[in-house]
């Protein structure tokens, strides 16, 4: 038997709720999830909205971009510009901080986020 945790897909918002090449925040119960519409790469990402550096609910208001030769997609918290990989959630600076990432699916102009 495979031990997988069932992913539950929730309808987060509509595609045009999230600015192109930017992010928005959605509420899922008590959870705040940042959703990024990386139009330039035709990709979507979702992470926790809380920046672990100073415990601020702000990641969704940060700028996205890429880092390095591999063009790792990233987001920078607007507070102190700590940057995190949108793929792994790992901090790309010196700090040992990690944020949670979520899978995203697009269907019928709607954005779905996979939660545990």
């Amino acid at each position, binding site marked *: 038997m495979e031990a997988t945790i069932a992913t539950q897909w929730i309808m987060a918002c509509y595609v045009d709720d999230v*600015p192109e090449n930017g992010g928005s925040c*959605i509420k899922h119960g008590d959870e705040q999830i940042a959703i990024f519409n990386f139009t330039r790469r035709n990709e979507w990402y979702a992470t926790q909205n809380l920046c672990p550096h100073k415990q601020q609910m*702000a990641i969704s*208001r940060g700028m996205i*971009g*890429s880092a390095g030769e591999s063009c790792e997609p990233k987001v920078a918290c*607007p*507070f102190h510009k700590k940057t995190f990989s949108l793929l792994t959630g790992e901090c790309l600076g*010196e700090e040992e901080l990690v944020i949670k990432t979520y899978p995203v699916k697009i269907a019928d102009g709607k954005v779905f986020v996979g939660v545990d």
Partner: protein
Amino acid sequence: MSKPTIIVVGNGMVGYKFCEKLLARSTQFQIIVFGEEPRHAYDRVHLSEYFNGKTADDLSLSTLSWYSDNGIALHLDDPIQEINRTEKTIHSLKGVTLKYDYLVLATGSSAFVPDIPGIEKEGVFVYRTIEDLELIKACAVNAKSGAVMGGGLLGLEAAKALIDLGISETHVIEFAPRLMPRQIDSAGSNMLQMKLSQLGLHIHLNKSTAAITGDKKIHSLKFNDDSQLAVDMLVISAGIRPRDELAKLAGLHVGTRGGIVVNEKMQTSDECIYAIGECALYEGMIYGLVAPGYEMADIVAAHLTEADKSFYGYDMSTKLKLIGVDVASFGDAFITEPDCRTILFEDTHKGIYKRINITNDGKNLLGGILIGDADAYNMLLQTVNNKIVLPPDPEDLILGSRGGEANAGAGVMSLPDDALICSCEAVTKGAICSAVNDGGVTGIDGMKKCTKAGTGCGGCVPLVKDLIAGTMKANGQYIKNVICEHFDYSRQELFDLVKINGLKNYDLVLDHYGKGDGCEICKPVVASILSSLWNDVIVKQEVIQDSNDRFLANIQKGGTYSVVPRIPGGEITPDKLIVIGQVAKRYGLYTKITGGQRIDMFGAHLSDLPLIWEELIDAGFESGHAYGKALRTVKSCVGSTWCRFGLHDSVTFAIEVEDRYKGIRAPHKIKGGVSGCVRECAEAQSKDFGIIATEKGWNLYVCGNGGSKPQHAQLLATDIDKETVIKYLDRFLMFYIKTADQLTRTATWLNKLDGGMSYLKNVIVNDSLGLGEQLEEEMQALVNTYHCEWKEAINNPSMRKRFAHFINAPDEKDPHAQFEPMREQVRAKEW
């Protein structure tokens, strides 16, 4: 076989560093640490920054989990009471008894408190730990005057702390006839004293305190010469005493004047017990700096892992900034003729004193002292330590090269490979260069990660940067001043390219001239360039704007925003004041008068911003651009309309100037000031541009700066009329906007400008580049296209929609944004 146990007594900087150094060498030890303070190790060197807003967490050397992650058992708030050397055990205050194989004493030092009658009174403090600082901070709230006993290095640090805490009258009392007698000579002391007195510090020399008077609380100091000084508080900083009481109790050999005697391996008279840092006495000397403490820590770590390393004393050269004044002493600072030759430079106007001591044959540098300007310190220290042969005119080392092509010395690249660059982390020039050559390091951040150079006191960072640049240059790597990894252009180059090609949005600019997907550095730079060129509404490209520009407000703790309407020249009608009050009340905002003569409202939820602005705009307000790299305020004094000294109407002029340049985006924020007479109540000379009335017209100053590195504005033109002021300002601001690097204030821009002020004067006043008319036209185009971006944002439904915290619940506010009451208003909850 179980691991040998090492118990470290003391969790200060050196004790912590020992753990780090030992772990780097071996994991074959069980490490147990005892600390007397309730906090884990923190940065004591930068303790005074605690008063500038740094928190205890900021000062921590590591996270608390670092200890457990590395298998270290940490006992805080539990001083060791006794060492039993026969049993090889220790006993702590909380009753812990543990066996050790090796013991490392890193007990540090305590403040020396002289035995003066009244020393126990309330309001008398020492300055060593965060707890001491908290007590001082609490007392300073109600204190108007304070004194520091001791005019040494730590005493002056403490005096700085009192000034930072807002004590308006701060005294320094020194027993000796001069300040910092251990580090600098008497001419240097005099210069330092002069500078510090100018900065408002009251310095009393040759004063011996006889008693501290007052009932329960300190009231005044009584001196041996029968004079008195009334103060509300006193900080004792009369020297340090090594904490050797535990060692003494255990029968270890200690010096007659304190300190645990150690050999070159840092072993005490018991070979299983080491002592390191300020508690250790090596050849009759206590080393009261952090770098030698770190070196001692490494020597013990080496000895325990059977590596060969010994302590041979340590260079006590030091450079610091005391209350804004550079002070440095290096090598043999005190050697005098005939044992050497001395070159002196003294400038009482600027408060600079420099002394270098060179060998009689003029070949080598022995040491020296720098007061007021210590930029040359790193290079001079390297010249001493590496016995670099001096240039034929060694005075160039402190005066700079005057005329001719000659450059003083051959710079950092001439240092030998074993030259110690970062003494805190013991990183040599060779290690830094090889990190560039083999490790692919190209910047200071990478270097810190790779070698740890520059992560201690940070004093070597400029030198490390020069070495990185020098090594890359030597390799033929072209070092360009580029914006970031996505654009191989400087801001000025990209500005011209965007302009010539008429590019209007970020993606186009990135496609044409960049690579990758951009980042948080280049996006705001391009946004600023686009805005300076085309002056379009910035929120049309919201996602490339910096944090504050994106939502046209300043993000604050807790994720709420602050709102600043423009109040040109600081003039406001009673009706408008009432509107601000009503709006603040309605939305529960904290209000404060800003330094720029306007009113800031804090604590606005994102979704309330459009509602707040709707009301403000209805009442005739406009955006104040407090969130933008743009013109902030033009501060004014009352001027000739009311003031009996005023020569001209400074308020009207300030309003005209502020209205002219409002909204224009620049590489950094811009502030202005207009004063109605030479008394300069608007503090215009600390602004990016300052206008001061004269009998015949106005004087125009430019490139002043407050901030962390204050700089006075310099005179650009004298006795000119209003129209000429505007003409020169147009040219000046546009020239700055077009040529400065991102996030560079006008002062720094000028400092980096080849030819400096005389060049700038030539361009602006004499129109030496023939650009004058063009710059004026470009500025006029920006003035003509001004718009209030808040007005645009609230009137545009799709822009307005973005001002919501939850996009799927736009009416709900962020529950994480929380407030606490404070003085009848609210404040953001601490993070």
